[in-house]
């Protein structure tokens, strides 16, 4: 069986790659496109480390087939920063020390962006439930939640 | 005279003595002296950490001892 040729948009730029029909988007991003910011923690959609935004929807890229992004638009962690500047969510993660080993951080930042795009003024509880699909083993989530709520506050004042 | 305290099971190798005085100026000499007097100690002590006046070292044969140093043999502990 020959490979699929996929034409898509990644982080606002046109992109194309070859993949096997059964290959996941996560594998295609990491191996075919060299975008290793999305991480593989489990391959069963349970840890959130592979989170990306596909056509405005937060998805675990390990459960999306690579072929599914044909004609679609995908945002990965590599597309969150704004040119030379970090996104407010990224900046707040740093200020709040909301990462220790950092491997879950890309997934959290993408998920948090999806949250704040949908809900600019979430409560702590809404934030915790939205981020319940992202596992962190290092931080106990405290500083992550504080960082996201702080970023939300900043973004309401100065839209990102 | 360094005073050596031996935890739990080690006193089985010293005829029941839990506290032994040893004349030594360095840890290595102390261990040699102890194991000459109590050959059964050699195997269990190997790999144990040693507390010298409250400071615990893992492997310190050249560490100097004072006249009145208090020594404890401490099972080695691995962190995570």
């Amino acid at each position, binding site marked *: 069986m020959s490979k699929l040729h996929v034409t898509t948009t990644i982080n606002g730029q046109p992109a194309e790659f070859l993949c096997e029909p059964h290959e996941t988007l996560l594998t295609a991003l*990491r191996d075919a496109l060299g*975008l*290793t*910011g*999305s*991480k*593989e*923690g*489990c*391959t*069963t959609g349970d*840890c959130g480390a592979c989170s990306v935004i596909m056509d405005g929807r937060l998805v675990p890229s390990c459960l999306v087939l690579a072929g599914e992004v044909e004609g679609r638009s995908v945002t*990965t*962690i*590599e597309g969150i920063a704004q040119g030379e500047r970090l996104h407010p969510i*990224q900046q707040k993660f*740093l200020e*709040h*020390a909301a*990462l*220790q*080993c*950092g*491997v*879950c*951080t*890309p997934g959290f930042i993408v998920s948090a962006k999806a949250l704040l795009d949908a809900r600019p003024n979430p409560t702590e*509880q809404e934030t*915790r439930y939205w*981020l*319940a*699909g992202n*596992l*962190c*083993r*290092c*931080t*106990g*989530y*405290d*500083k992550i939640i504080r960082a996201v709520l702080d970023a939300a506050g900043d973004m309401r004042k100065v839209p990102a | 005279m360094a005073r050596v*305290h031996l935890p*739990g*099971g080690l006193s089985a190798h010293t005829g029941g003595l839990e506290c032994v005085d040893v004349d030594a100026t360095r840890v290595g000499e102390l261990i040699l002296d102890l194991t000459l007097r109590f050959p059964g100690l050699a195997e269990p002590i190997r*790999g144990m*950490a040693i*507390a010298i006046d*409250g*400071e*615990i*070292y*893992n492997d310190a044969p050249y560490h100097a001892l004072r006249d009145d140093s208090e020594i*404890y043999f*401490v*099972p*080695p*502990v*691995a*962190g*995570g």
Partner: protein
Amino acid sequence: MTARTFRHIGTRPIRHDGADKVTGRANYGADLSLPGMLHGVVLRSPHAHARILAIETSRAEAVPGVRAVITGRDIPENFGSIALGEAPFDTHDIGDNALAHEKALYHGHAVAAVAATTIEIARAAASLIDVAYEPLEPVLDITRAIAPDAPILDAGLETKGRPAPGSKSPTNIAARMELRRGDIVAGFAAADVVVEREFRTQMVHQGYIEPHACVARWGQDGQAVLWSTTQGPFLVRDQCAAILGMEPAKIKVTPSEIGGGFGGKIPVYLEPLAIALSRKAGRPVKMVMTREDVFRATGPTSGTIVRMKLGAKRDGTLVAASASLWYEAGAYRGSPSGAGAMCCLAAYNIPNFFVEAYDVLVNKPKVAAYRAPGSPMATFATESLVDEIARTLGLDAVEMRLKNAVAEGDHAPYGPAYPAIGLKEALEAARRHPHYTAPLAPNQGRGMACGFWFNAGLSSSATVMLHGDGSAAVTTGNPDIGGTRVAQALMVAEELGIPVEQVRPSVADTDSVGYTDVTGGSRVCYATGMAVIQAAGDVRDQLRARAARIWNVAPDQVGWEQGRAVALDGAAAQKPLTVAQLAAEMGRTGGPIVGRAAVNVPMAGPGFAVHLCDLEVDKETGRTTVVRYTAIQDVGMAVHPSFVEGQMQGGVAQGIGWALNEEYIFDAGGVMENAGFLDYRMPVASDLPMIDTVLIEVPNPQHPYGVKGVGEVPIVPPLAAVANAMRDATGIRSTTLLFSSPRVLEALAAGD
């Protein structure tokens, strides 16, 4: 001791590797690819206990795209051990665990490995390897393992330490140790209240989000280079060398960024296999574990049975303690039962005690270190019983503990006197904290527990190099799991008086920095920190000598104040010279300036913590939710307080997970049924409240700033804090973890 005021230590700058980590640029174990790289896959035993009779690899080798297949024949058994500072590492067991020889000792035990041009080909080929097994009856718990008719995992095993009277051989008991003081018979006889219980805890995993991964490349010059996610690159080098029969000097290990370890990334699993495959194939080989393999075939921590008895006087004074600790080692010797024995009574002055600890082989994965290894399970027992005694005697939780708490000069259960420790201060802080007296809602309860862990010292090296613009680079050999690079930068900033943004901290490979022991054991900020401080001090001394040269005075005429060389008495007419000015003149005053230091330090001041936990039990579902948590800890001196708080919060979350969420579920054949993050359900953000932290600073006199290790203690108190809160909320004392919803419901029904 520290009358010193700090300008940088204690501040909260953004970590230097932060931008890379929040943008996805940082490279972890699976993020490296090399030209011509093959993909390696491991074939694992389907039996929890079996003799390996024969392995036939020809069908696998014939698959197009397969470049190498290895079995135990390719990595002969070694019979060594590495005295690695911490407990000696038995490289025979680590090697046999990485690739089996005579027996498969747990479900998932590696028996062969394949390297091929794609991972699909490698997996397909692995399934074509024919292994002939003779299945044996598996031993799946301690009780079975010590039964007289138990199958024996290792016929050659001899019990280390002093076996109990009446012990038989052959055996599954790998070791026994004991600690004693005084006379427990007399002690218990004098007690007004005695409580005795049996506690059981379950096997749990460290749960790091990043699976093990490495890339190995063997060269025709007999040199191997290895990229690996590890807590200890030097240890990886030495383990691989011992296992493969190579000289350590022929292996270079570059540590990637590491996505969590907690002790589980100290042993090697894939690395020797990747090197052996690369050698056979003549190409680099990448190996990445699946999450399933991480659960089945790395190093979770022991399930345990702890029987403990405590006796106290009516006024709460503890007079006697006895305990019997049984810990699962998994397939090879080496549970942390001895550490459990040393920790369980460490918080209290008890004049009479007897503790024995057993290390027991079972057909489960070989256990590895997990954050304060051995202490949480044993402390679960102690703090539950202390809570019971306090309730029986009508004593306040803090009061009971203060009455017995150790202080400087008291003797630890394992012998030596404690240096400056902050247990009493932490208890008093707990009593003063608003959490202690906050009102509770219906179905809520509050529990308190103390915890203890050592902090390792061991060996570390550091280099500090000055740039021409007055900035500095600091290099160490410790992978940065939790902010140690920024802490090291703070130390250099403090010692040289330059802004922390002008310090560049990095983690080096095994060729580029002196020998350094693992990141773990709560040692990096303390021990590697000492090397960094000394190396920076070396730079400072050199800068003073350069100023002396410029001013044409003797070096003792030059002092140092806040980042500047200052002329003393004799040369008083000279204006001070800053680091930047001196650095600009480096070439002309003697050449580049490089500072270095290497240390081997004793164990750090022991860490004590006191935790308060409020939880709510839903009596209809048994679901238990932590609603408030406060962690109070003696941290010595917080170099970067945000990351100290982070260690405390992370340990608390793991401890809560251990009490309420997580367990290995084995079927009757020894197969783990929940080997994935869906059913091995670690705490998620919606499970936990904010976790308050209180940092008590009782400086460690052995360290120039007073630093103590902080990373491990936080996981110790939560098991008992949760259990005691459960008792408070429901009236029921549960002594068997996991407190899952069905079990809480059962306990509520039985208790009624």
